[in-house]
């Protein structure tokens, strides 16, 4: 059976959920061989094996943390040459896309980014993309070289499938360009204890209607009652009420949770681009004409300062 390279997104050995989804998709095409780089790479093997990786190629070097992107491209290329896979799958993070693109160029292949589904196809894997702010769905293929495809979070349900997960050391020699962009400082993001925005099953978002940083506690309280992640519109982020890393939309995160609750958000096209594929959409907005209501499964026309706290209380009392 053909092998499929899967690039592992992990933080110090803790594998992020989108990679496990990738392993599920990879099994539709062939046998997943995972590539884990950097600090804690070998620690990823157990969970990758549980999710279908027959092999885990690992390599650690200070270059991965000290320089941007290129060392990872060198390593993925080494893995590609060692395995000769039928396809290369990479999580659609900002860095993942850059690594994938440079690899594709080096190996003479095409690249498809932000796939939301993947099938084996007769000739080569067929990727589904959601484009133009999710108003169109396309089916595309890489027709030259080995398909390099990046896949968005929440594109497949994670399925366990025990496999060997045998760890093998990958041999990597860095190119002379690998040290071109130095990382001279790094400030890790503080954990909020809430689920990761792109991976969460429920997202509760606030927009300009929240009207102040201090009022975001209303949004957070609703999120916590549901075990949800907190999102924000760009208007709320630009006003400095919530961090940019929580922005949902074209230039923020794209989310496709089971449930999206938009509070005080009008539903501009750029915001919709990031949440339109959510399964169930709910909105609270005092303007009955707000475009967000065109998308909703359930909408409340009302003041969020009345509706949201009442909703939170009701959820808490129902959950007991």
């Amino acid at each position, binding site marked *: 059976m053909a092998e499929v390279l899967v690039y592992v997104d992990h*933080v110090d050995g803790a594998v992020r959920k989108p990679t496990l989804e990738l392993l599920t998709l990879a099994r539709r095409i062939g046998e997943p061989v995972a590539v884990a780089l950097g600090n804690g790479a070998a620690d990823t093997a157990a969970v990758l094996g549980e999710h279908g990786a027959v092999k885990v190629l690992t390599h650690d070097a200070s270059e991965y943390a000290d320089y941007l*992107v290129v060392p990872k*491209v060198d390593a993925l290329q080494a893995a590609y040459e060692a395995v000769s896979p039928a396809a290369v799958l990479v999580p659609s993070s*900002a860095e993942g*896309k*850059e690594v*994938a*693109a440079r690899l*594709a160029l080096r190996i003479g*292949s*095409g690249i498809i*980014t*932000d796939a939301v589904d993947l099938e084996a196809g007769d000739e080569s894997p067929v990727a589904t993309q*959601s*484009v*133009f702010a*999710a*108003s*169109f*769905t*396309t*089916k595309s*293929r*890489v*027709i030259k*070289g080995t398909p390099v495809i990046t896949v968005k979070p929440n594109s497949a349900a994670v399925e366990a499938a025990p496999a060997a997960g045998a760890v093998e050391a990958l041999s990597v020699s860095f190119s002379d*360009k690998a040290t*071109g*962009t*130095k*990382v*001279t*400082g790094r*400030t890790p*993001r503080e954990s909020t204890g809430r689920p990761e925005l792109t991976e969460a099953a429920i997202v509760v978002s606030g927009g300009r209607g929240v009207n102040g940083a201090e009022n975001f506690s209303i949004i957070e309280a609703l999120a916590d009652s549901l075990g949800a992640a907190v999102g924000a519109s760009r208007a709320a982020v630009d006003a400095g009420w919530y961090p*940019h*890393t929580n922005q949902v939309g*074209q*230039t923020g995160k794209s989310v496709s949770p089971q*449930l999206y609750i938009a509070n005080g958000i009008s539903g501009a*096209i*750029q915001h919709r681009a990031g949440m339109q594929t959510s399964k169930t959409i*709910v909105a609270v907005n005092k303007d009955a004409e707000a475009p967000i*209501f065109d998308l*909703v499964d*359930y*909408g*409340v*026309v*009302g003041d969020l300062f*009345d*509706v*949201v706290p*009442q*909703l*939170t*209380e*009701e*959820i808490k009392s*129902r959950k007991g």
Partner: protein
Amino acid sequence: MSLRIVVTVKYVPDATGDRHFADDLTVDRDDVDGLLSELDEYAVEQALQIAEEADDAEVTVLTIGPEDAKDALRKALSMGAHKAIHVEDDDLHGTDAIGTSLVLAKAIEKAGFDLVVSGMASTDGTMGVVPALVAERLGVPQVTLLSEVSVEDGTVKGRRDGDAASEQLEAQLPALVSVTDQSGEARYPSFKGIMAAKKKPVESWDLSDLDIEAEEVGLDGAFTKVEAANERPARTAGTIVKDEGEGGKQLAEFLAGQKFI
């Protein structure tokens, strides 16, 4: 010594228009008004700021696109860029990301550069990979997705705000940077700027000027193929209630019915 900055910009269909695909499954660019990709305005802005800080700098805007794409160049010139290059050739129709990066890299090399500035992504394809591809082709450092950027003494520095951490980056020129929409609002062209832009030089190059064969680009040269494009069915109309004191409770009832509570 003069600092040569090339800004890559893209002419895209207006996102608020009715965007759709043509019969050959490429983007229909005739039916919808085009404009300078809003995310590239941030690139132009940062390039202008870097140029203003430098003693002697020249900002060239570069685009690949049909005749109308000149509008995007004019906008950038009216913001303050010094000159423009338009790569235009019928054989470019249908070029994908790999091909786009080839044409951009060849044009940037021909123009001569110390620094390339790009937007974080175009607002049509929204891939966000072209800057990395161009850096790979040019063999220069990529300093991408910056929310803050500066150039001093031949070194480019910037801040990249990622999911897990915010990183400080540094590279020697020549280099390529891309900037996000967090890098600072783009200036509005002044009336003077708009008038001045009319007199600024716009060079037109075709594939032969860049020593690129027609087979390397366009639909025939593409490494990817779109096989189907279907409009997503509109969402079915949901229930909308007006809050008359019980809105939160009614919403909770809905969520419970959907098993979210």
